[in-house]
């Protein structure tokens, strides 16, 4: 479930990046790479788990599935927070810098 949610997040971010390209003011590529990196890593985890559990891998207990879904959504939220921090620090539009200089000029 965590893998599925992260893959969906990666696909949505990639579509958003593509629609905005070649402009990349929002630094969406960071979000894309982050989610794709995590998706690939969880895919490897899933393959190893499948090799161990076989068909049982596709029949998780409802409580585990709920916990995994909750974890997946938390991971997406964490990714968004990391991206937001990077965006505000790099400030490609100069919005934060402009707001700060405006305040100091007053």
């Amino acid at each position, binding site marked *: 479930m*965590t893998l599925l949610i*992260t893959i969906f997040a990666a696909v949505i971010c990639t579509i958003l990046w593509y629609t905005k390209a070649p402009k990349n003011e929002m630094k969406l*590529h*960071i979000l894309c*790479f*982050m*989610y*794709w*990196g*995590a*998706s*690939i*890593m*969880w*895919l*490897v*985890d899933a393959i*190893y788990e499948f090799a161990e559990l076989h068909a049982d891998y596709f029949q998780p207990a409802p409580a585990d599935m709920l916990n995994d879904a909750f*974890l997946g959504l*938390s*991971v997406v939220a*964490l*990714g968004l927070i*990391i991206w937001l921090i990077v965006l505000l620090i790099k400030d490609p539009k100069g919005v934060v810098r402009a707001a700060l200089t405006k305040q100091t000029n007053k």
Partner: protein
Amino acid sequence: MACFIVPAAEAVITTVVTKVLQSKEKSSEESASHEVQASHGETALTAPAHTGRTPFSHKLQWLNNMLWGGSALLAFEHIWHGEVVPWAPFLTAASDPASAAEMLHEMATTGVTMALLVTAVWLGMVAVSSAIERRSETDNETQPADN
């Protein structure tokens, strides 16, 4: 258990390599600009040496982003499952030898495969982008001849 440590370690190495490459590319670009200025008798930095190709350091940044981002999100998953704690030795599996051996085995199998697969995907991206760049270069070269 601690599989994310392997891609994170690779990320440290690739980040250092990226920084070294960026400084080398910057210095070679500056020297090329100075050569152009000298040939034109210019004094200001007006002619950056652009080849139209994406610098390799930029492509390496894609790998850094995937490795750091993936490791960070996987580390969060490990915190969620109580496998990483904020006190020494930070990894719960490192507290007893049997769990530590299991953890090292997982790092050597799952962790190494994760790092390899991310690197393989990145190599594919580099190959595709290089092919696109080559194709656009050939298109640019043939276009004036057509007209």
